[in-house]
């Protein structure tokens, strides 16, 4: 899964998709995940960094991550590679 490269994400979690003008807001966790995805990090690296930063069980993180990715998919913010 690859995040759209031209997606603009502010520190406050405001997301702007310049391809279609859609905008969204996410929380700090979501903004961090998008930032790491934009850096081209893989799931294992994202999991590692997020676990270090936030107090979260790996299993719980993976479930939340999958849920977040499916929301990104619903809004055309990610594409299959």
């Amino acid at each position: 899964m690859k995040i759209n490269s031209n997606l603009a994400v502010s520190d406050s979690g405001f997301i702007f998709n310049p391809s279609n003008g859609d905008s969204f807001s996410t929380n700090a966790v979501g903004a961090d995940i998008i930032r790491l995805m934009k850096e081209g990090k893989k799931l294992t690296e994202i999991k590692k960094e997020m676990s270090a930063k936030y107090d979260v069980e790996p299993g719980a993180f993976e479930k939340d991550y999958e849920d977040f990715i499916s929301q990104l998919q619903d809004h055309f913010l990610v594409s299959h590679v």
Partner: protein
Amino acid sequence: MSSSIKRKLTVAVTGLNAVDSPGPGVAVIRGIRDCEDFDVRIIGLSYESLEPGIYMEGIADKVYQIPYPAAGTDTLMSRLEYIHSVEKIDVIIPNFDAELHNFIKISKQLKEIGIATFLPSNEQFEARDKVNLFKFGEKHGFLIPRDKTIYDVSELAGVAKEFEYPIVVKGKYYEATVAYTLEQAQKAYHKLNAKWGLPIIVQEFISGTEVNIAALGDGEGNTISAVPMRKLFITDKGKAWAGITLEEQSLIDLASKFISATKWRGGFEIEIMRTNDGKPYIMEVNPRFPAWIYLTVGAGQNQPASLVKLALGEKVEPYTSYAVGKLFIRYAWDLITDVSEFQKISAFGEL
């Protein structure tokens, strides 16, 4: 110390009706005034006495009323000759679909008396007409929704059966209604017929996200500018009240393909419905700048000023970039003026 020379110009512009279904005139004027290459005098050309652009500060230096398109080209030409005798107009920019046919027709006469225009040819104008758009798409490889031109309300049922509901019922020049039943379609037919006359165009409904492109062609197949925008707030008349510039190369390519196929001369707007699987259907091509044209100026591509330069025969280099994520937000403003102003434009046709 710095010095500069600005070209003195007089530009006449129509479409001063900055109302809820606005004409582009005020936005076009703002663009031209923003251009630092000109020292410009703006002549507003109005049809009605309550067009807000007549009275707005810093828009038109002088306003003249002109005859309605139905009065014909001779009447229009004679009025413009009078205005030209007073104002020495360099360029005229007409901005209404309904008046363009007349202006295209008299463009040679205008040139002979020293007034430049930068308009599409009659063939270009007709090719993108709603009535001919589907054929145009077939010829040049553009996706266009199927449509039927009808002259009698009894034809509606048959067309609806072919396209399946919902269908889009469109007026000859402006306005469209999405109809989900035959009754709704008939109501829309009668309303549009009363307002704009026949024919009525019935179009297949395409579901998706509406995106618009404002563009400028140099008449030789080159794209001088193309800026895509998505409406963020739409009025009940379907007009953009807020919008944002997009970054989407496929949309710019589509505008360039249109310009290259038609050798379009002048400004225009393409209305696109992009389906969820990304197919861009051209819904309409408006043969003039849209009312939101000032967004292109804000985004770094001054299309109105470029059109003035092209009209004057200057070489204009194509723009290569614009700011993505630039918004326009339209607003309503109560302008206070005196009845004496209203009286001048109403009684004498000048202000």
